[in-house]
């Protein structure tokens, strides 16, 4: 158990994924929700690269991890633009107070 193998990396990625989901559902600030999403994307990346090393796929997993990083960059830019617009419109970024569509 002390010798580091595939399971150790999967444990880290599982813990990061769970912490990311916990952050997304408990924090009110939209920027904190984005940080939770980044944690989840990183945990997926750890899985991809761990399976690229321990699996039999060559370097394909690393390529997919690269694509995930690119998509995360694009997603963060657009999401922050949306958050800035929300702040201009509602003067708050707390996701539980932005409920205009309700009712």
């Amino acid at each position: 158990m002390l010798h580091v193998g595939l399971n150790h990396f999967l444990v880290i990625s599982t813990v990061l994924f769970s912490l990311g989901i916990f952050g997304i559902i408990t924090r009110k600030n939209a920027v904190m929700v984005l940080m939770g999403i980044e944690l989840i994307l990183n945990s997926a990346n750890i899985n991809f690269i761990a399976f690229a090393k321990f699996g039999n796929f060559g370097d394909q997993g690393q390529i997919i991890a690269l694509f995930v990083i690119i998509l995360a960059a694009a997603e963060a830019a657009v999401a922050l633009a949306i958050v800035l617009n929300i702040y201009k419109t509602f003067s708050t970024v707390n996701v539980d107070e932005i409920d205009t569509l309700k009712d």
Partner: protein
Amino acid sequence: MSIYDIVFYLFAAITILSAIFVVTNKNIVHSAFYLLFTFFGISGIYVLLGADFIAIVQLVVYVGGILILLIFGVMLTNKITSVQIKTGTFQVVPAAIGVGLFAGILFTVMLTTNWRSYNNSVPATTTKHLGMILIQQYALVFELLGILLLIAMIGAATLARK
């Protein structure tokens, strides 16, 4: 325990402890700085997995790009001078129970699965090989991602200055 194992546990501890601080800290700016350590730890884990190029890309893109973007988001959406930068939390206990159950299920599935594990030798450097398959096998995806980044940049600029 070899050096590899010790370094792994070090990076794992950095990653997970700072990730816990990210999701539990009340101050958003502190959370953003703990996120920095999380990204560093994950980058170290990539190095341990033999993905040197991805580790550098992780540092450049996440630490140099996305984290700066997030900190700008914090600064632009809070009145720093008047209000303290705090963020509320809600439904912490139900969320902790639900996420704990979810993590338990994930752990059970993961640890009971008999993963087929190959002992691949780690190449000294992956950059050249990654570059070759990026422009041969994945050329179309590569170009599409370039277009996507351009669209995201234009879209973010137009959304933000409206």
